[in-house]
């Protein structure tokens, strides 16, 4: 008992230093079983996770295939690609396409200039009126595509004359029609250059910029366009007397104002250079209301 080793030897003798043999084998089996069970549980978890992923994928695919999610995705991508299109993103398909061939057309009160020939602005321009029309339609449950292509910038970049604006606008228009066959109405929004007295009317104490509806006679869809223009005029007259300045038929027009693309294509001059954006929005809302009526009447038929 002198050295540490003696002491340890004594300790070793004092205890049964080997477990029973059957204990060793039983424990080994038990551990293997527990390990298998653990592994099984883990695999089950993995499996259920995989199954859940597959189910979600299947749901997404069926949504794409059967519920028209495809178009939503396509339009989303288009938006990302061009960064200019704010198309409707609801379930319903867009029925109206709104664009501005002369997208920089602006208003004297907004640009702080006096010369109507200089009333152009990079941001405060007619595009906002088209945007307002699109939003106003949406509030009425009508989906539209509002094209915000900066046509002036494209013209400048390609060194094209101003008269080519319609040709440039046509590209986005054709692309949109291809991906949205549901579109049945095309509106090109402009503003006039006439004096305020010619482009403004007071209805119930509020100034409304007036709308001139322009149809190109040379386009293939002239008759359908004209008929539609007349109908729009009549319905505007009924609700907002004097708001419409009537239908103007132009014998020609650069590119037929793109009115050959689809029946019911119109060029609308909303107000003039001396109107304010606030007024313009008022007319845009009124126009949306009447357009909404027309579309709903058709749906009911």
């Amino acid at each position, binding site marked *: *008992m002198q050295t*540490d080793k003696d*002491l*340890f030897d*004594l*300790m*070793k*003798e*004092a*205890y*049964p*230093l*080997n*477990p*029973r043999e059957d*204990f*060793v084998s039983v*424990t*080994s089996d*038990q*551990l*293997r079983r*527990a*390990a*298998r069970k*653990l*592994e099984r549980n*883990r*695999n089950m978890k*993995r499996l259920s996770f995989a199954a859940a992923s597959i189910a979600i994928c299947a749901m997404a695919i069926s949504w794409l295939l059967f519920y028209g999610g495809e178009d939503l995705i396509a339009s989303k991508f288009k938006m990302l690609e061009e960064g200019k299109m704010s198309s409707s993103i609801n379930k319903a398909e867009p029925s109206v396409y709104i664009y501005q061939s002369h997208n920089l057309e602006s208003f004297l009160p907004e640009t702080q200039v006096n010369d109507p020939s200089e009333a152009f602005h990079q941001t405060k321009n007619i595009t906002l009126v088209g945007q307002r029309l699109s939003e106003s339609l949406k509030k009425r449950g009508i989906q539209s595509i509002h094209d915000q292509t900066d046509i002036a910038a494209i013209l400048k970049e390609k060194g094209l004359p101003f008269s080519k604006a319609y040709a440039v606008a046509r590209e986005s228009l054709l692309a949109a029609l291809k991906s949205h066959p549901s579109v049945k109405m095309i509106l090109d929004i402009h503003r006039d250059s006439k004096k305020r007295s010619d482009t403004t009317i007071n209805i119930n104490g509020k100034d409304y910029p007036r709308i001139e509806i322009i149809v190109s006679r040379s386009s293939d869809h002239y008759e359908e366009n004209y008929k539609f223009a007349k109908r729009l005029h009549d319905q505007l007259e009924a609700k907002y007397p004097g708001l419409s300045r009537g239908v103007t038929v132009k014998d020609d027009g650069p590119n037929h104002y793109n009115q050959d693309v689809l029946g019911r294509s119109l060029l609308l001059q909303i107000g003039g250079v001396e109107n304010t954006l606030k007024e313009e929005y008022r007319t845009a809302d009124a126009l949306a209301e009447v357009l909404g009526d027309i579309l709903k009447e058709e749906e009911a038929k």
Partner: protein
Amino acid sequence: MFDKDHLEERIDEIYKRYYLDVYRFLVCFSGSQNDAEDLTQEVFIRILHNLSNIHHISNIKTWIFSIAKHVAVDHYRKKRFSSLFADGFFRQMASTEKEPNEFMEQSETKQLVRAAIAKLKPHYRAVVILRGINECSIKETAEILQCSEAKVKVDYHRALKELRKKLKMDMKEVMGNAN
């Protein structure tokens, strides 16, 4: 799915390699074969569950011993006062084939050693068993008990001193009684 028997193989390998070490530590710590066997099982079940969670174990030997020590201390706390004379001791006696006198003397010494060990405080007990029975190095012992090597050295000497004192005292008493 691809590593189906991985866990089973791993735990089996670890068990085969370390069960004796773990059992020996526990039997000395608890003083009972039955308890030591139960605790050994618990240690390896704990190892198994941690194996599937822990990906990197730096030193498997010290890791296993530290689990064994935790299990032992937990058990010690549970039955602090009832581990002096366990049934494993009597079973062991029954299987020895020695002359009654010799046997009595032998077993009395064993009993004294066990009692002395059981009286050591758990930390000292762990140090003595790890160093003396499991033959762990000072560094390994420090890792297992999560203290410095210096503390292991000091505690080891103090524990042995205490153990010797107790044994000497008890032996004298036994001799005195015998005479």
